[in-house]
C-alpha cells in the first residue's frame, strides 16, 4: 500500500511538472506579446522594453521556466500582469466559491443521476426507462452555456424563483449547481442503471425475492447499497469534468470562482493567472484520481492496490 502510494505520488508530481512545462511552452509560443498588453498603446518602445526587463520576459525560455519552477516550489505563482496582485492571493480568494459550487454540483448530479438510474433499472425496458435514458443523453450532450442560460431565463427571469446570477446565499447556488449537475447526472444515470441491473441479477437478490421480501426492501436494502458504491467511486474522476465546466458556468452566472478568473485571464493574456489556474486544476484532477483509486479497494474488496 505504502509503496503504491509513493509510486503514485511520484507519478502525480511528474504529471504536474509535465502540465506546467506544456502550458508554459504553449503560452510562450503564443503570438501575443504580454508586455504589449500590459503597456497599452501609448507606451513608448523604451517603456515596453523596461517592462519586459522588469518582468524577466527578455530572458530565454529555459531561464524563464526555471525561474517559474523555483518560485513555484516555494508556493509563489507570481504576480498577475494586469491586476498586479499575487496569483496565489487571487486564486485563494476565489477557491471557496468554486469548491462550494463543486459540492452543490455533486449533490445535484448524485441526487438526479442516481434517482434516474435507479428508476430506469427497476423499470427496465419500459417507456419510463427509455424516456429517462433519452433525457440523460440530452443532459450529457447539451452545452453547459445553453443549459445555464435556459435555467437562468426560466427560473430567474421569468419565474423569479432564484436571483439572476451572483453569489452569497443558497438561492444563488441552486441554478449554477444544477447546470453543472445536469451534465454529470446524465453519466451517473447511465452508470447507475447498468450497475443496478447487474446487482438485480445477482443470486442474493434472487434469494431475497424468493424469501418473499417486499420489492421496496429488496431494492433499497439489498440492491441499492451494492449498486451505488462503484458509482460513488467515480466522483474523484468527475473533478476533471468540473474543472472544464466551471469556466463556462461561472462566467454565465457571475460566480466568483477560479473558472471566471481563468476566463478573464485568457481574454487578457494574463499568463501568470492562466498558469496558476491550470496548475491548481491539474492538481485537483490528479488528487481526485488518486483519491478515487485509494478509496476503490475499500468500496470493493476485489480491487487490490499494487
Amino acid at each position, binding site marked *: 500500500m505504502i509503496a503504491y502510494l509513493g509510486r503514485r505520488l511520484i507519478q502525480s508530481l511528474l504529471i504536474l511538472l509535465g502540465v506546467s512545462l506544456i502550458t508554459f511552452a504553449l503560452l510562450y509560443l*503564443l*503570438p*501575443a*506579446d504580454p508586455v*504589449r*498588453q*500590459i*503597456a*497599452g*498603446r*501609448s*507606451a*513608448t*518602445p*523604451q*517603456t*515596453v522594453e*523596461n*517592462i519586459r*526587463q*522588469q*518582468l524577466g520576459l527578455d530572458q530565454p525560455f529555459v531561464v524563464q521556466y526555471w525561474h517559474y519552477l523555483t518560485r513555484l516550489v516555494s508556493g509563489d505563482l507570481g*504576480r498577475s500582469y*494586469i*491586476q*498586479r*496582485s499575487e496569483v496565489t*492571493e*487571487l486564486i485563494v*480568494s*476565489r477557491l471557496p*466559491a468554486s469548491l462550494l459550487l463543486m459540492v452543490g454540483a455533486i449533490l445535484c448530479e448524485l441526487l438526479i443521476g442516481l434517482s434516474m438510474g435507479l428508476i430506469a433499472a427497476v423499470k427496465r425496458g419500459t417507456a419510463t426507462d427509455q424516456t429517462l435514458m433519452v433525457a440523460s443523453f440530452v443532459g450529457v450532450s447539451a452545452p453547459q452555456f445553453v443549459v445555464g442560460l435556459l435555467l*437562468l431565463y426560466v427560473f430567474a*427571469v421569468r419565474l423569479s424563483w432564484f436571483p*439572476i*446570477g*451572483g*453569489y452569497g446565499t443558497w438561492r444563488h447556488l441552486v441554478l449554477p449547481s444544477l447546470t453543472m449537475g445536469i451534465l454529470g447526472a446524465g453519466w451517473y444515470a447511465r452508470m447507475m442503471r447498468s450497475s443496478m441491473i447487474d446487482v438485480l441479477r445477482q443470486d442474493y437478490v434472487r434469494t431475497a425475492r424468493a424469501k418473499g421480501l417486499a420489492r421496496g426492501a429488496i431494492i433499497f436494502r439489498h440492491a441499492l447499497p451494492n449498486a451505488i458504491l462503484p458509482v460513488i467511486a467515480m466522483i474523484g474522476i468527475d473533478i476533471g469534468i468540473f474543472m472544464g465546466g466551471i469556466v463556462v458556468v461561472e*462566467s*454565465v452566472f*457571475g*460566480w*466568483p*470562482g477560479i473558472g*471566471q*478568473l481563468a476566463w*478573464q485571464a485568457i*481574454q487578457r*493574456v494574463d499568463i501568470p493567472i492562466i498558469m496558476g489556474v491550470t496548475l491548481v486544476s491539474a492538481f485537483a484532477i490528479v488528487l481526485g484520481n488518486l483519491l478515487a483509486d485509494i478509496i476503490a479497494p475499500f468500496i470493493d474488496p476485489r480491487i487490490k492496490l499494487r
Partner: protein
Amino acid sequence: MKRFLATTVAASALALMLGMASARAEDTIDPNAKQGGAITITYKDDVATLDPAIGYDWQNWSMIKSLFDGLMDYEPGTTNLKSDLAESYEISPDGKTFTFKLRHGVKFHNGREMTADDVKYSLDRVTNPKTQSPGAGFFGSIKGYDDVAAGKAESLSGVTVVDPYTVKFELTRPDATFLHVMAINFSHVVPKEEVEKYGADFGKHPVGTGAFKLAEWTLGQRIVFERNADYWHKGLPHLDKITFEIGQEPIVALLRLQKGEIDVPGDGIPPAKFQEVMADPEQKARVVEGGQLHTGYVTMNTTMAPFDNVKVRQAVNMAINKARVIQIINGRAVPANQPLPPSMPGYDKEYKGYPYDVAKAKALLAEAGHPDGFDTQLFAMNTDPNPRIAQAIQQDLAAIGIKASIQSLAQANVIAAGGDKAGAPMIWSGGMAWIADFPDPSNFYGPILGCAGAVPGGWNWSWYCNKDLDAKAAEADSVVDPAKAVERGKMWSAIYDKIMEDAPWAPVFNEQRFTMKSARMGGADNLYVDPVHIPINYDNVYVKDVQ
C-alpha cells in the same frame, strides 16, 4: 488596454485654458444636487489595480479619478481643462517652464496634508522603470526623463519643489499638450508613506486625495467606495457610497437594472438588447447618448504590395459603404471621413473625404494595374460585431474585385499581426480602435500614424511613415502660446488632410456612447457620458430619492 477620453464641446480646450490662472472649481456644483445615498454599478470583469501609475483600462480609469487627484482636471462632463490640486499655474513665454501653485489644506485619505514633495515623488515614481507604468512615456518632455527611464537617475531633474506649495516643471521642448498630461491619471498624486507601506500591493490599498476612499475590496466580488468627508472641494461628492459589483454579464446587469436592483450597468447596453431597449420609451428615457473620441478604421499596410500603391488605398476608401456598416451596429455610430473624430479640436469640418463610389474605385484599381482586382487578407477581432463588420467590408471590396479573406482572431493575435511588418495587409480596427488618451489632436497621430508607431510591436498598423509630417507634428506641438491655438488646430488639420491624401486608413465610423441609468439617478446628462469619466462622473452625480 482600451483607453478613451472622449469628447463633447470645447473645440480648442487647451487654448482657452492656457491663459486662465485660477480655479473655477466652485462653480461646477449642481445646485439641485441632493446629498447622500448609495448607488450600485456592475461590471463583468475584475477591476485591475487602482494604482494611478498603472491602471490603464476604461474600467479603472474613472474609479482612480475618484480616489486620486492631479494638478489639472476637466470640468465635469466636458473636455475643458481646469486646475484641480493646483490653485493656479504659470507658463513661461518660451513654453518650456510650467509653475504650479498648490491648494492649501488638501489632505490624503490618511489625514496627512499633500504638498509639492508629493507631486514630485509621484512623478519620479511613475517614470521609474521599476514601477512598470504603461504611461511613463507621457512624461517624455520633462527634463531628466531619459535618465530616469534608463535607470540612471531616481529623480526627474526637471521637477523642482520651490516651496511646499509650489512645484516647477522644466521641459526639454515646448509641449502644447503638457497641461493635459498633468490631468491624466498617471500624474495623479500619491503619498510616499502609503506606497512604501504596501509596495506592489498599493493598487489594492489606494490612498489618495480624491472625493471617495476605498472602504472594501472583496476580490472578484465587490469594491465599495465611501465618501471622503474631508474632500478639499466642499460640496462634493454627493453620494455617500458607491458599490461596484463584479462578475456580472452585461445581459444580467440589464435585467437587474430593469428590476431596479442596480443603477448603472458599467459595461453598457448589450448589443443584442440595444434595439429592444431603444424601442421601449420607458427604457429609452433612461439612456443618455454622447460622443466619444473614437474612430473605427481599416488599416492598409503601405509597405505591402498592392497597398504600397496609393491608388489602391484610395480605391478601398471609395469602396466601403459606411452607412451599411453602421446599420450592422444598430446605428450606434456616425460615418467618419478622417482620422480625427468630429468633436476633437483640429477636426476639419470642410473636408469631405472619399465618396462611396464603386465605379470610381474600380477605375482607380485599373489605373493601379489591377483591373481584375487581387486577393488579400482582412484581419479582424473575433468578438461580435467585428466579424460581421469585416464581412460587410469584404462584400464591399468584392464589388470592386478585391477578394479579401477574413482572418478573425483573438484581440492579442490581431494586435500582434498588426505590429509585424509582414503580418497583416488589412486590419479592421474594431474592438482595438484608437480612443484618445486626452482631447488633443496630437494624440491621434504619434502612435498610430507617425513613424514612432511604425515599429515592430507598434500600433501604426498601416506602417505609414512620413518624415515630413513627423516634423510638422513636432512643430504644431511646440505652439504653446494660447493666442495661437487656432493656428495650431489648423496645423493639425493640414497634417490629417495630407494623411487622407495618402490614405493609409479607410476611416469607417465614430462610435457613439450610450449609458443607461436607473430612474433615481440625477444630474446633468453630460455627467453620464462624461468624456473623461467612463461610464459616469462619480463625483458629481447624485440620487433623487434621499432627504
